Every structure is written in C-alpha cells, then in structure tokens.
C-alpha cells in the first residue's frame, strides 16, 4: 500500500499506469479483431465443414 501523505500534484503519464494503480479487473474479454465476412461466405463455410466432418466421420 502506498503511504504517501501528500496527494500527487503533477499529472502522471498514462502509459503503464495500470502497473502503478489499484486494478479492478473484469472477467470480460474483448472479441478478437477478425476480418469482416459476408453472410453468404459464412453459410458456404458452414456447408463445407459440415460436409467434410460428415464424410470424415463415416467408416472407411
């Protein structure tokens, strides 16, 4: 615990401020930035991997 009796007067740089502060974490996570995709592309992808997995699951 920081025991400074004199409140900080000068502004602090914000880069890396998390390491100097009391951190209130969150269980939330950011969704990764992914390339935008159209609905048609996503539907085609679904059909492709569905077919592949169905074929792969069949006994040879």
């Amino acid at each position, binding site marked *: *615990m*920081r*025991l*400074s*009796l*004199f*409140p*900080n*007067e*000068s*502004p*602090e*740089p*914000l*880069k*890396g*401020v*998390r390491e*100097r*502060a*009391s*951190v*209130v*974490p*969150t*269980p*939330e*996570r*950011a*969704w*990764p*930035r*992914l*390339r*935008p*995709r*159209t*609905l048609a*592309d*996503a*539907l085609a*992808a*679904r059909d*492709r*991997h*569905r077919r*592949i*997995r169905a*074929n*792969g699951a069949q006994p040879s």
Partner: protein
Amino acid sequence: MAAWPGEEIEERASDIAVAADVLLRRQAAWRHRRVETLRVLSHEEVRRQVSVDFTVPEEYRDLLCLSDAGEHAVPLGVLHKRPLVHFDLRDEEQRALPLLTADQGRAISRELLYQVLDGDLAGADADPEAVTLAAGPLIEAVLADDERRLEDRISELERDHGLARLDEFRAMAGLLSRSFVVWAVVVDIDRRRVLKFALDQRYTQRGGLTFYDTPGCTEAWSYHVEIDVPADVRARTTTLSDNATGAVLASGDRDADRPALYFSADAAQTYASPGLVVDYGAERWRFLAPAAIVAAVIALVVLPPWVFADLHTLAGRAGPAIGLVLSTSAVFSALVLRTDEHPMLRLMLVRYRLCLVACTIAALFAAAALGFQARDWVIEVTWAVAAVVAAGSAGILMYAAMRAPSVRSRPAAELP
C-alpha cells in the same frame, strides 16, 4: 417426436455459429450502444453493470433461432471461465433472462471454431478437408478447457499441412479455451432491445489511482461509462486510455461526484489494454478541513508555551489547569475522528486520521506531564515531542485539505 432442449441446440448450433461469425466480426454495426456503470461498493468490491443496446439484422434472426417457441440466442459478451459473483441478466422491464448452459455454449463454440478455421483456409493451397479433420481433436481440446500446448499444437497443424499462420483461428482458440460467450435467450428480437448484465468484482484498493479494465469499450458503436462515486468522495480526474500506449480516448469532468465518459471507437483501431483511470479524492469538508483546524489549534496551544514559557514554573502554579485545557483537544478530535462512512473513504483517510490521533495523544501526554508535575526533563521531552508532532500533523492536514476536492475547488490538473 419433439426434440429435448439439449438436442435442439445440437441441431441449430451451426446456424447460430454462422450468424455469430458474421455479427461478432462487425459488432459496431448492430450493437448501438454499450453503457457500463461502475459502482464502488467498498474498497474491495465493485459492481459492474453493463447494458447492451442492439438490433439483430433481419437476415440473421432465423439463424439465431433456438426453438419453435421463438427463443433466440444473442451473444452479449465474452467472460473468463471462473465463478461469477452475483451475476444477473435482465431485460428492459427488469425481468430475469436465461443464459445458454455451458454445454449449449460449447456446441456453438465448436461450430464457431470450424467457421473461423475455414476463413483462415480461404486462399490457402492446403487440402481443406485434411486440415478440417486434423483440427478436430485440437478443437475438442479447446472446448475441454485444455489450453496446454495450444500454441504448439496449432503450430504443428500449420507445419504438417504447409499452412501460413492461422491468425484468426489462433486468436479464437486462445479466447475460447479460457473464456465463454454469454448467450442470452431472448424471445423477441424483431425490434431494438436493451439487455443488462451485472456482476461483482473483487479487488484491492492500494491508494490514489484506480484502473478499471474496460475491454468492452470497442464492442459497440458507442460506449458510455459512468462511475457511481461513494458519498463524500470525488473523482478528481477520470480518463479512458489505452494502458499499452498511454493514448487518451476520452476524459470526464474534473472533481465530479458521478463522472461520465463517452467514446466511439474507430473500427480500424485496436487497443491492447483499454481502461478507465480514476484519481479519487476525499471531499475537503468531510474530514480533512475540520481535522486540520483541530490539529492547528493543538499546535498553537502547545508550540508557543514550549518556546516562550517557563514550563517548570507553570507545572507548580497552573499545571492542572493547563492539563485540563489540553485534554479538551481530545474531545474535539474524537468528534472529528468518527468513522461512520463508506469503507473506501475510510481507507483513503486512514493516514490523516493517524496524524490527528498522534497529535492528540502527544498533547495529552504533554498535559499529563504538566498536570502530574513530572520531573523537569520529562516535561521538557513530552512538550518538545508534542510541539513537533502537532506542528507536523497540522502542516500535513492543512496541505491535504487545501489539495482536496470540494464543490468550490478549482478543477484538478489535467492529465496528459
């Protein structure tokens, strides 16, 4: 025969994943606003309430359908896999809403991972069939929360099939091995909706600055955050910034009792560690100014006699009377030292309370030495100590009181 609830999701998971795959890549396009309210419950606990204002585009509504009863699954956010404290999900009318179960969420995540893998394979020379089948055990490991050697196993997959780096699949596998998607079960998504979830978060208050992680600040077209500051505390400065670069994204009013910030993220910009930096200060007239006055009075009663008066003569003539006068300072200090306040404020003031306590005790000892007509050297030492402690405490308290925010104080210094 009608399907059981668990069977329905298996049938619909791939359609839900298709919709989620498109929607979650363009969150600002359908989530209009995200509002976060941070309520400081104590110096160890914060309640975070998040409301998400969204409209599901028409062409995705059928894909997100969960059952013939008109229920839909809507992704509201991603949470780390650990027990949630006091979690609550409600709609606009404050009615409790259900969430998909962990198994149901896993079924959708499985399909989502295959979707993302397919996207990474677009344009690659590799045989998509072989890669998709080879990725099966890896995807199952992710869903089983087995993140051991995850990076190595993805590298092996890339090497074995001569693939370029599967960046998006890596990012998704990493995320879903440690986190889960919050899927709200909503009946009516044909209109604009506002859903709210809330949870408590424990932390340790360590002093001046507080950093609230805000990874959700880019997950809607606009982001609003406000802090419910405890009574008698003010937020001297409130700044939304990226911890990795120090970039300021938004700033709130200074010396505010309920600071609010607004931010709209640039879709092309990424922020590694966004967070809200708050510098709290105790309100001047709650404790600091009265304590400074009491300490100054004690210092004025102790310091001049120690410097100018003949304490040994006084001990013989007016010792008990002076002792009584000094003892009254304890009564005033006790009035100022009351602790019926918010736990966070109590922690912020503990150092200054110790100053006032030290000052009062030193004055009492000086009074006792005089009142009991102690030996000369005892009187000399106790008054010297009392004078120094009282003057020091008064100085510290006056400086802190002058620096403390109040309704009438000037705005605090601006952060860079």
